[in-house]
């Protein structure tokens, strides 16, 4: 079968449609908006039997989805940037009440200055909201991992919300070949919507969700919530295996390339990791042993998978497409935390790249690798694509595409 040629927002909508979502509530925000437009078209054309909730804000959108999930419906939403920031409060509620809502996020930075382009600021500031966080690198991955997110989130051992992140414009508005599953394969992979075996709001069997909890019992609850998310990694692995059987496409929590015997491994999130891999392939032809390890699953943090990928290398180069103001990149601390306790501790560098949609090209990656190999040991975090980042380290103007 010829592949579809879909953009990222279409891949997200198509996955939600084939998952037979029953409730969709979302509020438009660039560059996510097309996903919701496609879904409303599917409903209008009779291709999808779902309730579309028109809401006045992202806060309401996620509240509506949480409510739908509370009664057992399969609920889907989409957002990014300031919209996701407005949802943040409800994100904690949704995970605390263990409602398996699935959300697609077309990553976009947070204002101000006003900027509509990609970085991971919006999802990373919500990294501790108790959601599963999955980062995609291609349009095909958006489709596949949204289907997987439903399987994982609704699994009776998990019951947690999941977000699938894809870079705004770079993937949301880029078209690539996508091989969708046929509907029968999706129906076989996903249990029928509403069939999950979990506590539900039901007048016949009254239950309370989101109750007050006094200090004496609070840590007990927090421990359970933490463990539920940490332990979901096992279900994620199993779901990846089942998906491979259904689709022939293989996924792992960490997408590692050429890490065996690598002197340096680049670690990061999202589409830039494919560009990094492309660059690593070229560098290896020149004898520079660079590997890449994309964190496909970021929450729960796949510590073992990452240790396996970076074990034995001399330098780990963490590329953060985000900034934790006043400290450094937000991916970096998770990587250093696990490496600190290893007998063999590589150097771990942190470069901040591509914030606000600045293009991350092979030249960007090459420059990062060159600086790292050249013994750059300046500030903990360095900004290779920002002007005037550090005295003595020149900013290289790359020819900007028009």
């Amino acid at each position, binding site marked *: 079968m*010829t*592949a579809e*040629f879909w*953009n990222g927002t279409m891949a997200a909508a198509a996955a939600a449609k084939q998952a037979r979502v029953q409730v969709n509530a979302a509020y438009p925000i660039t*560059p996510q908006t097309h996903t919701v437009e496609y879904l409303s078209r599917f409903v209008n054309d009779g291709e999808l039997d779902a309730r579309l909730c028109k809401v006045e804000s992202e806060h309401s959108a996620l509240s509506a989805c949480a409510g739908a999930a509370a009664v057992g419906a399969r609920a889907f939403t989409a957002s990014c940037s300031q919209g996701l920031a407005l949802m943040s409060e409800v994100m904690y509620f949704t995970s605390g009440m263990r409602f398996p809502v699935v959300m697609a996020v077309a990553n976009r930075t947070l204002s101000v200055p006003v900027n*509509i*382009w990609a970085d991971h600021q919006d999802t990373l500031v919500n990294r501790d909201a108790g959601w599963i966080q999955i980062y995609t*690198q*291609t349009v095909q991955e958006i489709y596949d991992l949204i289907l997987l997110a439903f399987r994982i989130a609704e699994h009776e051992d998990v019951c947690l919300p999941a977000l699938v992140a894809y*870079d705004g*414009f*770079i*993937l949301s*508005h*880029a*078209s*690539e*070949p996508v091989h969708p599953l046929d509907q029968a394969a999706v129906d076989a992979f996903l249990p029928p919507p509403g069939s999950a075996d979990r506590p539900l709001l039901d007048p016949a069997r009254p239950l309370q969700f989101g109750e007050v909890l006094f200090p004496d019992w609070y840590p007990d609850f927090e421990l359970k919530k933490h463990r539920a998310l940490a332990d979901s990694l096992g279900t994620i692995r199993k779901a990846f295996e089942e998906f491979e059987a259904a689709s022939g496409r293989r996924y792992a929590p960490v997408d590692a390339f050429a890490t065996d015997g690598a002197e340096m491994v680049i670690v990061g999130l999202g*589409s*830039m990791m*494919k*560009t990094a*891999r*492309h660059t690593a*392939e070229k560098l290896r032809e020149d004898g520079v042993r660079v590997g890449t390890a994309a964190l496909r699953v970021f929450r729960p943090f796949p510590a073992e998978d990452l240790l396996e990928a970076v074990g034995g290398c001399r330098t780990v180069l963490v590329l953060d497409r985000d900034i934790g103001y006043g400290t450094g990149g937000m991916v970096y601390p998770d990587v250093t935390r696990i490496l600190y306790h290893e007998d063999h501790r590589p150097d771990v560098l942190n470069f901040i790249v591509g914030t606000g949609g600045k*293009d*991350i*090209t*092979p*030249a960007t990656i090459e420059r990062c690798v060159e600086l790292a190999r050249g013994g750059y040991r300046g500030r903990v975090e360095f900004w290779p694509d920002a002007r005037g980042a550090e005295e003595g380290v020149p900013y290289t103007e*790359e*020819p*900007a*595409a*028009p």
Partner: protein
Amino acid sequence: MPNTHPESASASAGRKLHEIRLAGRGGQGVVTAGDLLGKAAVREGFWAQSIPTFGPERRGALSSATLRMGPEEILLKCSTAAPGVLLVLDPTIWTQFNVTAGLVEEAVLVFNTTEAPEEVEARLRGGALPYRLGVERCRICTVDATGIALAVLGRAITNTAMMGAFCGATGLLGLEPVEAVLAERFGKRASPNIEAARAARDAIRWRA
């Protein structure tokens, strides 16, 4: 018959990664052209990718897109910095912006203009523009896509004509898959667009 350049890439079309930059103005269908050419390439068995460069879109402002096609999955997730083909949909945009930045040597440049390729080249190298063409051995061709669009479509929307010019100038795609995606995309309105593509493919003028 398509007026393909004798040294065109058609012989090696299927074997390497091709990077194409499309440039024009908002409203001319630059992004759509990239998307539809990508779709046509996928029909022909290529792995293709179209990435528009988005900004605050305004009708008439610079609009550009990257199209890549190759034999296997393309890992690059960024705009092209080194295009081998430049497709300029607007007759004047290139006099204001350096749409040629980063072009590789022996790139194919396709301009929508009534001017002859020699005249365009003289201006690109002459020093009166805000930039100078940085490559020596490129191949330049021109086609009056605006004239064709006005005659066939009645509107100066040049993207479908320039898709035909792309086929003719590069030999990377035949007109058949392009016609197929135009039929799919435009339905009843497809035939004038197909006619525009065909006419532009046959009207390319190469530098002597």
